[in-house]
């Protein structure tokens, strides 16, 4: 799926009127089948950007185009059908605690299932081999019939990623897929995702905190800072100075004194009831 963003301005839902924008982009364009990593310090707006592209967050100004269509101009069934072509994996794996892994993973395929098939799948999962293959790609095959709340944090995160392999989507938006994974599993997960995306020509946009993993696995890096795009470069041109500037600026802001010493209050004591 082709993604194009123009003149985007996004506010937080509960923001005060004079607050700065959560996201303010001039132009962003991702071709079909491209793989992009988005990096940046905490609070830079990475999750907001993914939610914007997933049409989960409406921009105050600007155009979002998915395969040439603006999801906010569509209504009802057309909008739902467009949504079926994308997949958003939030940072916290969206798995109901008492559900079994097989059902949780197969829920990813719901956009392609009719109502009757969805209902039947609740009673007896319709694609157990498919679910097994997806989980095996992340080394979780034997957890097929376990309950989600009996898994560890890292295992739950991998189940959330395995969902992607079963969706009919042509755009994968993955938010912080490595936060609970050790380095070996992290690399395995990223390789699986990038290989699967490349095989089916799926556009892959991933936000990462682990800069070295981003540089090792992706050919295009976007840096975000304070809701604005710091750079959008092929990986070869991302230098250590650029990275230091992207992250360092924020640390400096943390040590600056925000307000001068307030004058001491007059010494008056009042007896209260």
């Amino acid at each position: 799926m082709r993604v194009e963003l123009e003149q985007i301005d996004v506010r937080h839902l509960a923001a005060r009127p004079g607050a700065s924008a959560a996201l303010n982009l001039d132009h962003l364009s991702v071709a079909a089948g491209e793989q992009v990593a988005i990096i940046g310090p905490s609070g830079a707006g990475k999750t907001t950007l993914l939610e914007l592209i997933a049409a989960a967050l409406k921009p105050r100004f600007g155009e979002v185009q998915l395969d040439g269509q603006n999801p906010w101009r569509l209504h009802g069934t057309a909008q739902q059908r467009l949504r079926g072509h994308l997949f958003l994996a939030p940072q916290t794996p969206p798995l109901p605690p008492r559900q079994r892994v097989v059902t949780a993973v197969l829920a990813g395929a719901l956009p392609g299932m009719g109502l009757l098939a969805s209902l039947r799948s609740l009673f007896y999962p319709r694609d157990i081999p498919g679910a097994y293959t997806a989980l095996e790609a992340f080394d979780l095959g034997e957890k097929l019939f376990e309950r989600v709340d009996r898994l560890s944090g890292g295992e739950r995160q991998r189940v959330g990623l395995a969902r992607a392999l079963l969706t009919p989507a042509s755009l994968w938006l993955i938010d912080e897929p490595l936060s609970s994974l050790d380095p070996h599993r992290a690399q395995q997960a990223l390789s699986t995702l990038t290989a699967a995306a490349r095989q089916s020509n799926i556009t892959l946009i991933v936000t990462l905190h682990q800069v070295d993993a981003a540089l090792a696995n992706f050919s295009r890096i976007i840096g975000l800072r304070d809701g604005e795009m710091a750079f959008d470069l092929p990986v070869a041109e991302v230098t250590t100075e650029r990275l230091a500037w992207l992250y360092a600026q924020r640390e400096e802001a943390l040590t600056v004194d925000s307000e001068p010493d307030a004058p001491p209050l007059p010494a008056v004591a009042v007896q209260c009831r």
Partner: protein
Amino acid sequence: MTTATLQIRDPAWPWRLTWIGASLFLLWPLLVTTEFRPWLLFEAQSREPTWRFLAAMLPPTTNADFLWLVLREAWRTVAIATAGIALALLLAVPATLVSVRVLSISALSGRMAPVSFALRQLVRWTLILLRSVPELIWALVFVRVVGLGPTAGVLAIALTYGGMLGKVYGEILESGDAAVTQSLLRNGCSRLQAFSYGLLPQNAAELISYTVYRWECAIRSSVVLGFVGAGGLGQQLDGSMKMFAGGEVSTILLVFVALVGIADFVSSWLRRQLG
């Protein structure tokens, strides 16, 4: 990835089938025993009286005399419930104090003395017994003894709700942190002192909140008790229904729903104030 197709069966499926089968198997006698025949509702012989009654219910009777009567009866219903809960508290509070394990002095040093244990169990089972008999039954019995009127209703509510409140107060008091109360007892306080300075401050909000919720339930109960002669809106409703006075019935129902709504509002306001 294996090339052969993996054939795995869902291990939960046989269990699910068994559960579904067992439920359907149990459902059949339920339907038969309760003579559950919903199509009867649509047969001519029940459609006509239903339609007639529904038609008679609109418009609700609104002449001043009747409204005044209904409001007076509504006050009586609230009064029966309030008096009943007040008496229930007189019953429940001492029973709770006796039955709560946290206030046991003999249990401070290990095992509870057998006499205290027996006494506590006795009080507990009495409360459970009081709770198990529906208040309507008590009301029927008391009506035979004291005659028709609100006394029977007040006493019925007092006994049943006394049992309910006593049991739940006991659960609330025992579910908190016992350390405060125990240290007071260890240092020589009497049981009543330990209760007032230890248990009560910790659990006051929850106790009050539950009592107010039960007061709301008591209002509904006193309407039910009116059907056996304990006065209030229930008795009025029974009378109006026996005379097929549909308009009066709908007025009483509307007043009653409004009453419950007000009680609900007061109850949730209080619970919000208690934090």
